[in-house]
């Protein structure tokens, strides 16, 4: 079978532009539609400002070269890896209960990573050069090289897996899905390595981020699964979905308790005995409100809500998943910002700058617009996909 014939066998719904606007005009739907539209307009605006002024349009500086867009990129690729893990539960590992969400989660992992790429394209100064020299002159010691290359391979596998899922070829979907998952996990831990390899930054250096990224990806994947299924079923879940979500909620409680354990020990080892460049930074982080948003929205609230009924109160978990994603955003933002908090010159053995100060950063309007634009793009792609493809599990599952 030629590729052309193969593509012709992919089932999809013929839709027109009119079908895209034929959604139920409830206030919530209209609000989401307007939000998405305005985010997309902002995307265009932000990109226009960036094309005009380059990195000067951003709040980044010599001492804080990575800003909001890096955080948002991480946010999207974490989401993608997370959805890939959730999707693989049924489809690769054969847990029957989770089969019903596989197709939707795998599709979600594709749209989130595309949105991430769309955002990072306006942070990397020369994306075209990157594509060329990534191949011609690969920097094999660079975690960014590995992360980018592995994510490229991962995306390919995810698309192929999705096609097999659409064609209901579960055997092939499982094989391809397995490799997709492996490449996703490798790529994602390499993203942790981008920070973990920074010997110059004791707060980020070490094994913590590569492992923590995988854990938080799984957590993020479950949050998003609650959100997309909540919208899909308008919170009136069928018995099958109820079983699936309750199972995921219990896994979530386990993952969050591991996360609390991880983060507590990271903080304790950071602070213990006051190692300069690490202890002072950790104390500074503990004093920042953005860290506490992360703690409350990702750890405390979900833990309390899930444990109250052992994952049976699905509506409540839907809502805390929404707020959880806000927490996850702050988690990414904090990670990027915290790694750069400490001025490096202060770390020199002979100091030659005035009293230590923290490096300030606040995202510019262009950065915020492009970031929201990424979210808009993600919602739009997901919406189009949900019209174009049958994302529900087929009846015989």
């Amino acid at each position, binding site marked *: 079978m030629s590729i052309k014939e193969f593509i012709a066998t992919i089932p999809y719904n013929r839709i027109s532009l009119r079908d895209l606007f034929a959604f139920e005009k409830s206030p919530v739907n209209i609000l989401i539609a307007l939000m998405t539209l305005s985010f997309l307009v902002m995307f265009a605006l932000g990109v226009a400002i960036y094309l005009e002024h*380059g990195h000067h349009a951003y709040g980044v500086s*010599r001492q804080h070269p*990575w800003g909001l867009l890096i955080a948002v990129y991480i946010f999207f690729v974490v989401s993608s890896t997370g959805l890939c893990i959730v999707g693989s539960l049924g489809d690769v590992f054969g847990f029957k209960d989770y089969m019903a969400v596989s197709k939707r989660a795998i599709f979600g992992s594709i749209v989130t990573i595309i949105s991430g790429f769309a955002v990072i394209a306006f942070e990397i100064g020369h994306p075209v050069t990157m594509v060329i020299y990534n191949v011609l002159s690969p920097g094999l*010691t660079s975690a*960014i090289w590995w992360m*980018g290359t592995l994510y490229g391979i991962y995306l390919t596998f995810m698309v192929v897996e999705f096609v097999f899922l659409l064609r209901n070829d579960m055997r092939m979907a499982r094989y391809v899905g397995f490799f997709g998952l492996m490449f996703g996990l490798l790529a994602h831990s390499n993203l942790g390595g981008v920070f973990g390899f920074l010997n110059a930054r004791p707060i980020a250096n070490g094994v913590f981020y590569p492992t923590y990224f995988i854990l938080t990806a799984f957590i993020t994947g479950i949050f998003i699964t609650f959100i997309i299924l909540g919208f899909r079923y308008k919170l009136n879940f069928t018995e099958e979905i109820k079983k699936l979500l309750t199972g995921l909620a219990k896994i979530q409680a386990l993952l969050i308790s591991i996360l609390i354990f991880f983060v507590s020990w990271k903080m304790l080892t950071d602070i213990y005995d006051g190692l300069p460049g690490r202890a002072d930074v950790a104390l500074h982080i503990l004093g920042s409100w953005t860290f506490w948003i992360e703690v409350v929205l990702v750890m405390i609230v979900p833990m309390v809500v899930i444990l109250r009924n052992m994952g049976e109160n699905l509506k409540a978990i839907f809502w805390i998943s929404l707020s959880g994603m806000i927490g996850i955003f702050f988690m990414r933002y904090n990670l990027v910002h915290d790694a750069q908090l400490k001025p490096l010159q202060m770390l020199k053995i002979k100091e*030659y700058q*005035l009293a230590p100060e923290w490096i300030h950063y606040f995202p510019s309007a262009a950065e915020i617009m492009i970031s929201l634009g990424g979210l808009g793009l993600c919602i739009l792609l997901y919406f189009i996909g949900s019209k174009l493809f049958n994302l529900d599990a087929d009846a015989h599952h």
Partner: protein
Amino acid sequence: MARYAMALDYKNCIDCKACEVACKEENGILLGADKQRIWVGHGEIKGEYPFLDITSNTFMPSQCQQCETAPCESVCPTHATYYDENGVVRVDSEKCILCSYCMVACPYDARYVDDRTHIVDKCNFCSDTRLVRGETTTACQATCPTKVRIFGDLDDPESEISQVLRVREYFTLKPHLGTNPKLFYLT
């Protein structure tokens, strides 16, 4: 083939900043403190008046340390940052994708974005300006009125820098990071 390095007799520095100006002039660096390849830092004066510690108020010229194991080189995804045949860490403007990873990874805050070329740049010991013309000094060294800077080849035992490093004590910055800097501060 050489192994270029620089020794700094930093206690002679009088903070005239002639080197900063000479570097900008020679290498056509844009104005502004966040665009500098080299700079002179000030120690903070310690103590309370009148018991001020005058030894704390030192001037410390600094710049890219020309690490022998350079973090900026290992993190670069496209080999835009490379060691040239003289051991100088340089940037190939063709290949730089402006990902800024080197800026985050350099322990010495030695890199900056050059708004003319739109790449991340750094000190390269005047390799593409003076050395390529056959000169044997860097601009900062040639201009320094108190002869703080000694630039030369570590592989040549007769070079001034090799001789100085044999007889004077020195330290390097953040040696615990294993970057093996080739900037030596003479004490």
